């Protein structure tokens, strides 16, 4: 019998009632008394010198409140970067100033040049249209490899080149890796592109700045995945506002996928302008603006080499990657191609020697930062593609080659600085084989061929590092923040609970899953528990939600705070029953004395805490409210095995996904239905990346995929019915729930198997195809077949 409550049950998501009935409270739903509207004038050229900005005609339009340009921000800091990378030679990365409004130069199409505040959004836009900006075009830097050649035009004149950093990892292994590759029995080489993506959350970004002049208090309402991080970065580094004078609120947020982690200039602008204009200032991004101002994702160009010995054991991996940073460093951009990518290059395999080289490059494009998976999909994609290619070159079964090289003993210290606590890669592969019916593939292929279609099967494994992260470790790696999480559990007199979590839900279902954990711990009904998040004025300093960290880190903080509550409640119960604390048991919401029939109910104890007439006041304080901060001891390492079956129409190159099968190990699971949903969403985005999505710039730095006319998002009929399983469970050993995180797995695990499947299908037509770059558009697949 599946459980009907607590950990392991699948209650329907309580937040969906308000989302699906139009009662969500999104940032754009908030309207302040007297609010004015801002329209940003954005650059339509990728690179140019600003000669002059004439705002006189715009300022004369009735209803215009104020117009800002970069001169208004001279006393203010730039947008900070939250992670510093040290390069191969021990030098700090090059870090250009990231102004709120363009200073002297524009560096990408979409960069903000001026801002008009007006009584209505329409007036602001009308006025922005008549601002005269004189820009002398400069040659645009778009191609990463050309950008780092001597003599390339520079995105930032004050930097020595367009190279942000040249990172080597593990630098000490460089020579040993070179030697191992030179001496290997077989080396497989693959060059590939991890395509640039635009996250496209359903809700575009919005921010509202508000200033309470008598009190001197600032409030920013913003579509963020981590309001405390925004408060710290914006308050301390941009505007110089101390935290106690700055409140950041992120109410319901309609999807983030990473792109709402970062501190954006629009947020600082609205906060600053609200004070300057003495009225609330609101910005709502249009979809067109979102395309050219939300941080983009991925965009790596990689050469990977896999060396094997004569028995097909992996002996070394070497990679050479160019990673696009865009024109400025977004909040966590430098960490994505380095620590979130290099540390995963061991994958599920016991490769002893690994060397990763990453050159991060400035270009005249929108800043690039974390997008669902962030660095880990790039790692899995290269590794799982090159393994497939090696299997083909060696004439061995790709599953057998993987199995032969699996890590089987845990904990396992990889040569790339991380230690996997648990895992069982054979178990997920066994599960995949059971689900996928590989034995029946030949018959399915024959059936497809009868209908004039090619059929292909692709398999891959993946590993990821979630639950980020141990603060001391990331501090050593250059993070300018801690990555613990917080929770306050407030028990009310009549027994209900409010949990203030530093995690932030923007679709993940925390309001449903988190109460399941506490309900299980105390033995009360989930309906007695309310989750509060997204407001720095009520929630203790927390780090927010990304990197599949909410349950593993935020949930752990909540467990720790609840344990404190239970300990204190037991003391109160012991007092009420005149027993010793050590003899008190809590079960099904009732405290009892072991071995007796004496008991008091949860509600009696909570009431006593707040009406302490009969209470051990000499030993403990009244009240029942506890806070915990949880800093994880390690990352968590979800893993899995995926399979994809495709049909390819050889006449048109169109790929249709017939089956997508995922066997994941997420450790313990709190709400299986929500986990299914997270995997489904991840798969949709992974398949989107593999088949459809591609952000394209032309040589002048114009964004060609600037709307849904050209940027292909996956639709329901592009996707198959998924087959997902998460019954393989090796619980995390270092967090109290034994959970690992499931939010990014689907997006990390699916692209390699889709591409492996298509390559397999093309080979079945007798074509010696080794690779096709994503997105596998009909055109590209057709060219691969006919090239």
């Amino acid at each position: 019998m599946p459980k009907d409550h607590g950990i392991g049950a699948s209650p329907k998501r309580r937040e969906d009632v308000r989302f699906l009935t139009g009662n969500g409270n999104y940032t754009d739903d908030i309207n302040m008394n007297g609010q004015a509207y801002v329209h940003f004038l954005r650059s339509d050229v990728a690179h140019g010198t600003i000669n002059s900005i004439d705002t006189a005609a715009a300022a004369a339009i009735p209803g215009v409140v104020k117009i800002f340009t970069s001169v208004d921000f001279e006393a203010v800091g730039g947008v900070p970067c939250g992670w510093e990378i040290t390069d191969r030679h021990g030098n700090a990365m090059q870090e250009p100033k990231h102004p709120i409004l363009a200073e002297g130069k524009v560096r990408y199409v979409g960069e903000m040049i001026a801002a008009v505040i007006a009584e209505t959004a329409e007036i602001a836009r009308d006025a922005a249209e008549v601002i005269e900006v004189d820009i002398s075009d400069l040659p645009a830097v778009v191609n990463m490899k050309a950008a780092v050649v001597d003599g390339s035009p520079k995105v930032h004149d004050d930097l020595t080149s367009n190279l942000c950093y040249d990172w080597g990892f593990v630098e000490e292994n460089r020579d040993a890796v070179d030697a191992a590759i030179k001496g290997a029995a077989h080396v497989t080489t693959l060059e590939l592109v991890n395509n640039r993506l635009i996250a496209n959350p359903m809700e575009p970004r919005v921010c509202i700045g508000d200033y309470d002049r008598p009190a001197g208090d600032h409030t920013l309402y913003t579509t963020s995945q981590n309001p405390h991080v925004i408060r710290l970065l914006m308050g301390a580094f941009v505007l110089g506002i101390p935290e106690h004078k700055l409140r950041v609120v992120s109410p319901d947020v309609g999807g983030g996928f990473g792109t709402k982690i970062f501190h954006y200039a629009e947020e600082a602008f609205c906060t600053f302008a609200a004070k300057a204009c003495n009225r609330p200032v609101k910005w709502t991004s249009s979809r067109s603006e979102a395309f050219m101002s939300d941080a983009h994702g991925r965009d790596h160009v990689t050469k990977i080499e896999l060396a094997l010995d004569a028995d097909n054991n992996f002996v070394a991996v070497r990679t050479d990657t160019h990673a696009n940073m865009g024109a400025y460093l977004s909040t966590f951009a430098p960490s994505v191609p380095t620590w979130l990518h290099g540390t995963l290059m061991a994958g599920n395999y016991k490769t002893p020697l690994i060397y990763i080289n990453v050159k991060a490059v400035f270009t005249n494009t929108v800043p690039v930062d974390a997008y669902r998976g962030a660095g880990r999909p790039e790692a899995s994609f290269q590794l799982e593609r090159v393994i497939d290619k090696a299997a083909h070159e060696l004439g061995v079964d790709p599953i057998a080659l993987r199995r032969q090289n699996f890590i089987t003993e845990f904990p396992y210290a990889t040569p790339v600085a991380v230690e996997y606590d648990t895992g069982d890669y054979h178990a997920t592969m066994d599960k995949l084989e059971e689900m996928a019916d590989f034995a029946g593939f030949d018959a399915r292929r024959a059936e497809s061929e009868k209908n004039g279609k090619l059929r292909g099967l692709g398999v891959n494994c993946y590993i990821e590092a979630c639950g980020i992260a141990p603060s001391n470790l990331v501090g050593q790696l250059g993070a300018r923040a801690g990555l613990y999480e917080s929770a306050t559990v407030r028990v009310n007199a009549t027994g209900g609970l409010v949990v203030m979590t530093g995690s932030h839900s923007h679709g993940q279902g925390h309001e449903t899953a988190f109460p399941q954990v506490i309900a299980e711990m105390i033995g009360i009904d989930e309906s007695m528990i309310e989750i509060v998040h997204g407001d720095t004025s009520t929630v203790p300093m927390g780090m927010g939600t990304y990197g599949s960290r909410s349950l593993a880190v935020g949930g752990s903080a909540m467990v720790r705070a609840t344990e404190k509550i239970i300990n204190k409640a037991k003391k109160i119960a012991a007092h009420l029953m005149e027993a010793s604390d050590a003899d008190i048991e809590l079960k099904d919401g009732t405290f009892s004395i072991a071995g007796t029939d004496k008991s008091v109910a949860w509600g009696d104890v909570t009431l006593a805490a707040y009406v302490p007439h009969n209470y051990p006041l000499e030993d403990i304080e009244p009240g029942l409210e506890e806070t915990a901060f949880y800093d994880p001891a390690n990352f968590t390492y979800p893993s899995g095995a995926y399979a994809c079956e495709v049909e390819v129409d050889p006449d048109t190159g169109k790929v249709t996904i017939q089956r997508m099968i995922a066997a994941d190990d997420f450790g313990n699971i709190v709400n299986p239905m929500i986990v299914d949903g997270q995997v489904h969403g991840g798969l949709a985005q992974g398949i989107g990346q593999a088949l459809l999505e591609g952000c394209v710039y032309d040589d002048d730095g114009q964004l060609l995929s600037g709307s849904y006319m050209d940027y292909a998002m996956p639709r329901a009929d592009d996707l198959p019915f998924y087959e997902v399983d998460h019954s393989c469970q090796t619980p995390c050993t270092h967090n109290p729930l034994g959970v690992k995180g499931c939010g990014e797995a689907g997006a990390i695990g699916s692209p390699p198997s889709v591409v492996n499947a298509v390559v397999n299908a093309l080979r079945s037509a007798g074509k010696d195809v080794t690779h096709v770059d994503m997105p596998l558009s009909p055109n590209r697949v057709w060219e691969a077949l006919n090239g």
Partner: protein
Amino acid sequence: MYEFEFEQPSSVADAVAALKAEDALALGGGQTLLATMKQRLAAPSKLVSLSGIGEMKGVSNDGGAVSIGGATTHAAVAAGAGAYPALADMAGHIGDPAVRNRGTIGGSLANNDPSADYPAAALASGATIVTNAREIAADDFFQGMFTTALDEGEIITGVRFPVPEAANYQKFLQPASRFALVGVFVAKTGDGVRVAVTGASEEGVFRWSEAEAALNGTFSAGALEGLSVDADSMIGDMHGSKAYRAHLVGVLTKRAVAAAG
């Protein structure tokens, strides 16, 4: 969007009069025009909605021809043009339900988007475009991307499609917009076979005369073997190269012939 005036006349004559105002534009379903206005790429002084004109709506079937009012929605054509199944099927696959319930045949033809479906149907069918002032043969109507024979203020009041003996439309979707990356409409009529191609050419919808000649010989996919369109005149963009589009024209024409039977 900039400010504009709005009129909703109930007769063609009133609409024609209203369109005399400078920079006035007809409004069909707004599925192209409103989006353009929101992006501030069009700034009509006045919109004259055709949606209140009863005489411009509906589908009728009179002796071998299907006549469709110029303000008839794609959804109404999909539901009502059963006498010409290939046409109804084409209309039923334009955009999504919201687009089909708003967008109109007149708007689509007047717009003449190089990737739109109706231009292929009208050209292959040898349809007649009826306006408030005259009748224009499809062969004379389409004059290159976004360009037609319509004069300023001229309204498409209806379109007459002779029902062919056999016909089929094959649309290969552009993955993002789901307009036609290439679409081929083949119609076999008493006067011969007509093949119209949309989505492919820099010049907009066109007739593939070599294919027509071959199919007039034998109406079978095999008759097209070895024929190809010139890739140089094709559209090349991030969704499909010129060569790929030229290839698709051949594939889709064969499929359309095979499906038309």
